[in-house]
């Protein structure tokens, strides 16, 4: 079984532990004094790039419909680039409405003739097979994910791909046990239209496909425009597993393809992960139909640090919360709420820790922060963080050299942020942390809940009763206490309010795929 481990955030191991006692007055000397280590020079790392040779990229890809790839080059296409180098990786087909129709029809045939009639224990075996092949080809998947998405290989290797395998492994086990899940029914819905984002391309695929197939549905999945490659590799894995044709169909494309898929009358279920704006449009598009919908949308999580929290662990959690995956995380801890009495100490440690973060080549095994996924996203991050300056917050980023090609943004914090600032209200979806302070637990709750979102929250404190009280008060679907950004197939994930509806993971995740 895969281990679910986010190495940037492992509590207990902490880059700055050795000097943590010297915070406070001596803090300034810690950074510039002659005896202090300068992390930028003292910890010089040799490059440790993961080899790309393991990935066999084709120059162009067709769509995966009814168990086969369509011929590439038919119809329009688009290029997918490596965000770290802007190198074109491959040409990918843009699925038209006719392509989507063909995929939905293939899924319907597979549903009617094969998949819905197959005993659960046989469906389970296909899913176990897929889990195993994902494990076998994990290195290849991780490298391709980092290439196409820009995330550090350390994360794709240690977080994304192991979770993908575990997701299939977990839901495989449910396929022949649905009658024990205590759900409304054990009957599948039919054909599921699934539209996923670019931040965790393969992991989001697994979150969508595994429960759908376990419950007996067939799927048409559209990966994000900028990150289609691992989904296409997953199509090959389906072939290797001898998954019956049409059970999984992958159509690549952009917004128009997604719209055609969601609106297709042959679809019984829509599952979407992405922005609240698109989620809202999907909810409107399916209004008045019989289609069932689950939406996993944006967030603006508060990561709340109390004065009794162990500072070094909290700082690791803050770093993991906002800089994991370049901050391209819907549940990112993008608002730090720190108790006023320890704000100075926490910020001092946080800045020192941030100075040790390594930004650069996603395929380098020592990289902490990779490339921003696209030029568009980089522009959005610039635009929103500029409003932080304009509205009077104070920006700080460690000195770090960014590569000259590709899309990059340094890890950044804003202090002096108020609840009215746009950077405290809107999802930046990048490595930008807004810092606010509070005095009492009640104030922390009020500020944390003062958002239209409600996906996740973090609490750092040594006091058990306070943690449980906070967890009870926070209006968020996932509360991480003394940890952050943990994911597991057995653990339900999803939001309150405008962060969407429905849960993915665990027994709850099956509910979205049965009648």
């Amino acid at each position, binding site marked *: 079984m895969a281990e679910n481990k986010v190495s940037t955030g492992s509590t207990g191991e902490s880059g700055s532990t050795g000097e943590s006692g010297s915070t406070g007055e001596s803090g300034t000397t810690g950074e510039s004094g002659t005896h202090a280590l300068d992390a930028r020079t003292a910890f010089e790392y040799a490059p440790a790039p993961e080899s790309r040779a393991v990935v066999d990229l084709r120059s162009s890809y067709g769509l995966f419909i009814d168990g086969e790839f369509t011929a590439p080059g038919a119809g329009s296409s688009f290029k997918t680039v490596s965000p770290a180098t802007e190198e074109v990786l491959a040409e990918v087909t843009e699925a038209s409405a006719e392509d989507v129709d063909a995929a939905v029809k293939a899924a319907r045939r597979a549903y009617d003739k094969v998949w819905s009639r197959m005993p659960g224990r046989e469906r389970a075996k296909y899913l176990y097979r897929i889990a195993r092949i994902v494990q076998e080809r994990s290195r290849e998947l991780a490298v391709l994910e980092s290439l196409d998405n820009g995330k550090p290989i350390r994360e794709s290797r240690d977080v994304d791909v192991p979770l993908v395998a575990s997701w299939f492994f977990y839901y495989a086990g449910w396929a022949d046990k649905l009658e024990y899940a*205590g759900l409304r029914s054990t009957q599948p819905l039919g054909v599921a239209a699934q539209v996923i984002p670019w931040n965790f391309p393969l992991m989001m695929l697994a979150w969508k496909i595994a429960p759908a197939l376990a419950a007996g549905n067939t799927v048409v999945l559209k990966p994000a425009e900028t990150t289609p490659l691992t989904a296409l590799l997953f199509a090959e894995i389906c072939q290797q597993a001898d998954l019956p044709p049409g059970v999984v169909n992958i159509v690549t494309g952009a917004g128009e393809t997604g719209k055609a898929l969601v609106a297709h009358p042959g679809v019984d279920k829509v599952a979407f992960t992405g922005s609240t704006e698109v989620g809202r449009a999907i909810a409107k598009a399916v209004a008045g139909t019989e289609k069932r919908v689950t939406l996993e949308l944006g967030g603006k999580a508060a990561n709340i640090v109390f004065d009794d929290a162990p500072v070094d662990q909290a700082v690791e959690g803050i770093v993991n919360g906002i800089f994991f995956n370049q901050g391209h995380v819907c549940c990112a801890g993008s608002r730090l709420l720190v108790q006023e009495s320890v704000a100075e100490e926490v910020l001092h440690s946080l800045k020192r820790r941030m100075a040790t973060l390594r930004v650069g080549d996603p395929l380098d095994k020592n990289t902490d922060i990779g490339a921003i996924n696209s030029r568009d996203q980089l522009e959005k991050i610039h635009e929103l963080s500029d409003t932080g300056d304009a509205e009077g917050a104070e920006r700080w980023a460690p000195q770090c050299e960014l590569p000259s090609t590709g899309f990059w943004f340094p890890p950044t914090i804003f202090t002096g942020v108020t609840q009215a600032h746009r950077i405290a209200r809107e999802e930046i979806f990048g490595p930008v942390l807004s810092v606010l302070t509070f005095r009492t637990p009640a104030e922390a709750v009020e500020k944390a809940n003062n958002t239209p979102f409600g996906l996740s929250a973090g609490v750092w404190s040594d006091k058990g009763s306070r943690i449980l009280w906070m967890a009870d008060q926070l209006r968020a679907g996932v*509360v991480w206490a003394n940890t952050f950004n943990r994911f597991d197939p057995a653990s339900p994930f999803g939001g309150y309010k405008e962060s969407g509806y429905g849960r993915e993971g*665990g027994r709850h995740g099956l509910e979205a795929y049965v009648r």
Partner: protein
Amino acid sequence: MSERLEVRKTYKLYVGGAFPRSESGRSYEVTDAKGKFLANASQASRKDGRDAVGAARKAFGGWSTRTPYNRGQVLYRVAEVLEGRRAQFVEEVSASEGLSRSKAETSVDAATDRLVWYAGWADKLAQVVGGANPVAGPYFNFSLPDPTGVVAILAPQDSSLLGLVSTIAPAIVSGNTTVVVSSYQRPLPAITLSEVMATSDVPGGVVNILTGDAAEIGPWLASHMDVNALDLAGIEDADLVRDLEVAAAENLKRVLRPAPGTDWTAQPGLERMTAFLETKTVWHPIGI
């Protein structure tokens, strides 16, 4: 000696624990199934709807943090008080729905029993829909249900009491607060039910009942940004269902779609409760 003249009841709205008339000053004539005049009911306006949402939001913090045991007792108390008014409800349901006395009795009794059934769920639901999650790591991880918030209920049009109770009880038992638009043609049992609520330890604002036209008030509730969920049980017009769902999408309200032909006498499942619940998952590391 002359026969005593009965004292008629003024049927008003129920908002925030009080019984106001519609701020619009409007009323409409309510008749029995045969067309005989029964009463003038208040015709709620969109402003009444907004007032009711405000009252429901204000009541949410208190109601949702009551212990489940306490909420169960309050719901049971509602059943007790409803039972005490059995004769009155039988009369109103019989007149409103055109039922024989014995059928009306069956329907009222079913409504009472439905409340008792839901009352018992208050302190059991979390164990049935929540639990510990066996994650692959040194973490204690559990999921619990949490009420969604303010639920707007467009109550069934035909089943004036049983349908009404069957939509309100599952929403409030878990800690939600509600704004209810009653059956338009058959509003009298709804207002009498609000008198039951007012005398059953249900805090003011937890259940707000408006009489009037769901097609008129519904769109304002569906688009209200402080409403978290929408129950469309009483909407039959497919176009209106779509429009309400579109409006509800603006702040991603949870929408429970209507199921035409629902048999309100049938044993309900968990769905009407789980439709208005969030699942909250809490993680904490295990270590020494």
